[in-house]
């Protein structure tokens, strides 16, 4: 992976006005490709009702139609439009990915800040997190779904719980570094209570690794949702999700390979886009790259 060439201190003010993110994107076409894929998937997901017909409408007379002018991606065994289901699947993937990121970041930030800042809580919180991480991700997600029951909300909860400790560990690591800084000590010496110190001084300086982690949690959440639904323990089967379409398609592999090929391509392209973007965000926020994390933190 090549390294981003960064602007040095002596930059002209005019150049600084071009948003930093755009400058990086322009230098790294592959990250730009990732960003375009992610934005496109999001737009398709949001505009699903405009782009596609009702993904639940069954028409048994039209079952297992090959892809063509009438049905771009063919139809499934119940005569539902696969294109519509793939498009609505994008909507679900983006929803689950986004919600899991919000959930895992909120919980992970809270746990990580508490563990890193209050040394007495550290051991307890991190042992619980270690215990949760001793389960392979998909296994814990399956087990949680067993208890929670199939629904979109529960899928978000289960995957969110699985990825919270991974965020918490990263946050705690940076808090341990940040809390030793002179400005934190100064604030403490001035008698500033713990909460304002955490929120105003510690939190903003821990954010870059969290943002990087967030972009990978998003990809992992999309993958995990697809896997859970494929296994039949994710979102209920009637809800169009890429995993659900694949799960049905598996039974008609011989007669209707398009049931696997189109949602499969959608998953692959989306995950590829998220990975490319994640790599880009990581290079962008890598603290090893001079001056960058500071500039980025100020911007956020």
């Amino acid at each position, binding site marked *: *992976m090549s390294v981003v060439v960064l602007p040095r201190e002596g930059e002209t003010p005019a150049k600084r006005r071009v948003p930093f993110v755009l400058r990086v994107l322009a230098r790294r076409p592959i990250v730009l490709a990732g960003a375009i894929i992610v934005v496109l998937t999001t737009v398709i997901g949001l505009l699903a009702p405009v782009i596609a017909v009702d993904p639940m409408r069954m028409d048994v007379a039209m079952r297992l139609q090959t892809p063509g002018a009438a049905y771009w991606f063919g139809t499934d065994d119940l005569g539902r439009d696969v294109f519509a289901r793939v498009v609505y699947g994008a909507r679900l993937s983006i929803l689950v990915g986004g919600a899991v990121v919000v959930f895992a970041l909120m919980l992970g930030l809270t746990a990580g800040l508490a563990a890193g800042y209050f040394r007495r809580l550290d051991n307890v919180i991190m*042992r*619980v997190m*270690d*215990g*949760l991480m*001793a*389960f*392979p*991700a*998909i*296994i*814990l997600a*399956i*087990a*949680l*779904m*067993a*208890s*929670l*029951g199939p629904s979109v909300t529960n899928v978000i909860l289960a995957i969110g719980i699985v990825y919270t400790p991974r965020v918490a560990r990263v946050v705690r690591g940076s808090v341990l570094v940040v809390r030793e800084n002179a400005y934190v000590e100064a604030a403490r010496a001035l008698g500033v209570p713990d909460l304002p110190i955490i929120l105003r001084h510690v939190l903003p300086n821990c954010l870059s690794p969290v943002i990087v982690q967030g972009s990978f949690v998003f990809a992992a959440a999309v*993958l995990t949702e*697809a*896997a859970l639904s*494929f*296994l*039949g*323990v994710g979102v209920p089967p009637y809800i169009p999700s890429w995993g659900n379409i*694949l799960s049905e*398609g*598996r039974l008609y*592999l*011989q007669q209707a*390979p398009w049931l*696997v090929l189109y949602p*499969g391509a959608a*998953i*692959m392209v989306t*995950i*590829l886009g998220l*990975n*490319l973007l994640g790599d880009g965000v990581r290079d962008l926020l890598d603290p090893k790259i001079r001056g960058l994390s500071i500039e980025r933190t100020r911007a956020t």
Partner: protein
Amino acid sequence: MEDRVKAYILRRLLALIPVALVVATVAFVLIHLAPGDPAAIIAGPDAPADDVAQIRRTLGLERPLHLQLARWYGRLLQGDLGQSIFLRKPVLDAIIDRAEPTLLLTLSAIVVSILIGVPAGVLSARHHNSAVDQALMMLALVGISIPNFLLGLLFVLVFGVWLRWFPVAGYSPLEDGWLATARSLVMPAFALGLVQSALIARIARSSMLDVLREQYVTTGRAKGLAERAVVYKHAFRNALVPTITVIGISFAVLISGAVVVETVFNIPGLGRLVISAVLRRDYPVVQGVVLVIAGVYMLVNLLVDLSYLVIDPRVRYQ
């Protein structure tokens, strides 16, 4: 054995205790996580009251929660995972019955991922920034973007349905001859291992690149060693440390991946066991499989940590 080494091993073992305790507690909590009476949920909506009462008794749900938890720890210490509600046999027996395909699938996937990932990573590093390097890394990026179950489905479609090279699904147990077993595992092992080999290749490449910049590599070249000797005798061994870590992590990813891939190929392993248990709300089986897999995972991580003693002598002097 040196005292330092003993102390290191002991430290690692002790560190496992709190983690194991949390793991056991999480597995216990699973059954109480759903809102409402667990016995009623397990029995299903139309179950007669007698059935619900019997399930409550079997699972000991009528006792206070802290006593249930104490009994749970006690039983786990004795290796007792309880009784399956649906299969009407001990959970441990059900797991042992289904372990063979999952273990064989995981192991063969590890072999596939190492045999492809490590050479690809080394090759990429040796020809850093060449066309070969870029092609391999692009391939690896695509590789980590394909979920294993999707790759499995595509294999079934291409090599099973269209080309008819391999059986579309199913598993042939070892006792019916290893050749048939191997044949039934080729596609699942590649579906599972290829994705992981992409990750291993990326790590192997970057740790090789780091090592190749070291002074002892330059020294080796300067004193006229053949490039082969420099790369394989000096650099490779040192690049192994991060790679072994990833292979250890791979084990966790692969054993849980096996659980998913089994569904694609209809392999009657732990994955099918746990999924059918989830659908039947057979909580003791879910708890048991989850515990066993987490246990194996912790053990493998321990072995990875201990393997540093052999690979990286510096660990001994920490």
